[in-house]
């Protein structure tokens, strides 16, 4: 059972900043449709890890392999060709292995616009603040070659609905949106091309509790309905519990514990995880 091939595999990822260890020797596999949470305190290396996994930051050593369905992209960079198990109907196409850190900048950008997504903690880092919401949503589609204005607009309106933003705000620039609305727009902008894997860095950080709850519900539903794989970095264990299937706990650049989310949080073994879990305020 579970014979399908991972979507993303990292092997022995290490990032050193001079003497300082950002991340040390981290390996992981992520399968289609799976949400992996990475938790730990500030400075534990979780953002460094996310940036290496998404190809944005070059590791000191180690490798990140993404299995793409985009053959044009991978033809030049293929490592080995693999065939999915025939009974795996979620991903029946042939996929090729891409070493994310061996891609040129242009190839990496192309991948980030199509099969991958990246949701920043601060929506200002992920949106074009001065162009309309509709143009923000349409950008990835246009990058993929869609030029028909009517279809772009229709898709933008459909996505505003999906992320519960009012249609009449389609022509407004996100600078005029509230923080929660900006974050929902950033999610729409990323998901419009139906990516297979989305990286999320504290997607609900810095939002009011009520806005956060609504956003969690939205992310949860979209992930399920679109069968997205997600790597989610958060320092909030409640967010990790609600969204992620599996959890990795980071401490001083190392993964100290990992497993099924509820198992790690309800039966933590490592001293640091026990400290983390016992420090949650009871609401």
């Amino acid at each position, binding site marked *: *059972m*579970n014979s399908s091939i991972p979507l993303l595999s990292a092997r022995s990822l290490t990032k050193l900043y001079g003497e300082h260890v950002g991340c040390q020797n981290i390996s992981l596999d992520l*399968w289609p449709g*799976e949400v992996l949470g990475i938790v730990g305190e500030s400075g534990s290396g979780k953002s460094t890890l996310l940036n290496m996994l998404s190809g944005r930051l070059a590791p000191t050593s180690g490798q990140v392999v993404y299995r793409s369905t985009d053959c044009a992209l991978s033809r030049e960079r293929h490592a080995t060709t693999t065939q999915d198990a025939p009974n795996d109907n979620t991903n029946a196409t042939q996929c090729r292995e891409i070493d994310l850190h061996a891609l040129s900048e242009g190839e990496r950008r192309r991948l980030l616009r199509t099969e991958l997504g990246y949701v920043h903690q601060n929506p200002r880092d992920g949106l074009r603040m001065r162009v309309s919401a509709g143009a923000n949503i349409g950008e990835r589609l246009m990058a993929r070659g869609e030029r028909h204005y009517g279809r772009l607009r229709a898709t933008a309106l459909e996505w505003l609905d999906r992320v519960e933003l009012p249609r009449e705000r389609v022509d407004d620039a996100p600078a005029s949106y509230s923080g929660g609305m900006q974050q929902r727009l950033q999610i729409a902008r990323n998901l419009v091309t139906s990516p297979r894997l989305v990286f999320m860095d504290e997607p609900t950080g810095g939002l009011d509790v009520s806005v956060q*709850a*609504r956003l*969690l*519900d939205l992310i*949860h539903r979209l992930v*399920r309905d679109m069968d997205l794989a997600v790597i989610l970095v958060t320092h909030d264990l409640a967010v990790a*519990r*609600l969204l992620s*299937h*599996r959890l990795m706990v980071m401490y001083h650049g190392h993964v100290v514990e*990992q*497993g*099924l989310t*509820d*198992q790690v949080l*309800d*039966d933590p*073994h*490592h*001293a640091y995880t*026990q*400290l983390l879990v*016992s420090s949650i305020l009871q609401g």
Partner: protein
Amino acid sequence: MSRTVIEVRDLCKHFVLHQQGGTRIDALDSINFTVRAGECVALYGPSGAGKSTLLKALYGNYLPTSGKIIVHCPQGAVDIASADPRTVSMLRRTCISYVSQFLRVIPRVSTMDIVAEPLLSAGVRAKTAYERASALLARLNLPPRLWNLAPATFSGGEQQRVNIARGFIRPTPILLLDEPTASLDAMNRKVVVELIREACANGCAVVGIFHDDDTREKVATSLVHINERHDAELKSA
């Protein structure tokens, strides 16, 4: 004799509390029992004996220190105690259901969506999922005016019924119940007893903790005694 669905072999569970001077708690010591299809096994013993710990280990929520928990699912036999997280996840989606004592859900999500979720995750069509959810909520006497509300403001008994509906909506070969009737009135306890008996009649293997003697006597086909010495013996109910 029906087929064996769950085999617990020499199961031990120790907790080491690193934040409290490395205190070691021996929660379970050499637990052995089997559950066959159609049986309802009640875990029986004093408070603090480790009944909930055992049930949580069966669900893969607690990681055993040693021993085996073999579950015979349609996909084959798997040892939950040593299975990788993805396998445990897959078994939870397809083979093992669990009704916890407390409802833990995303704030603001409606009762209907919470109850239908296990079916939706298993790929059942939305219309079918919501119809089954409605039928189950009605059977558990939860007023329809509550169905589209989030359960955060519900009473304990109402929340428990949402939890039960969520646990029973998708029939699985294994059903784990942690005090499902704790805060229910007599009428709703009766519904839960019927639901458990129906599950057994359909070949489900049930393991439960029932504090209420009346419910336990009505549903349990055998008892696993977990006493203060933390060893278990199987007796006929």
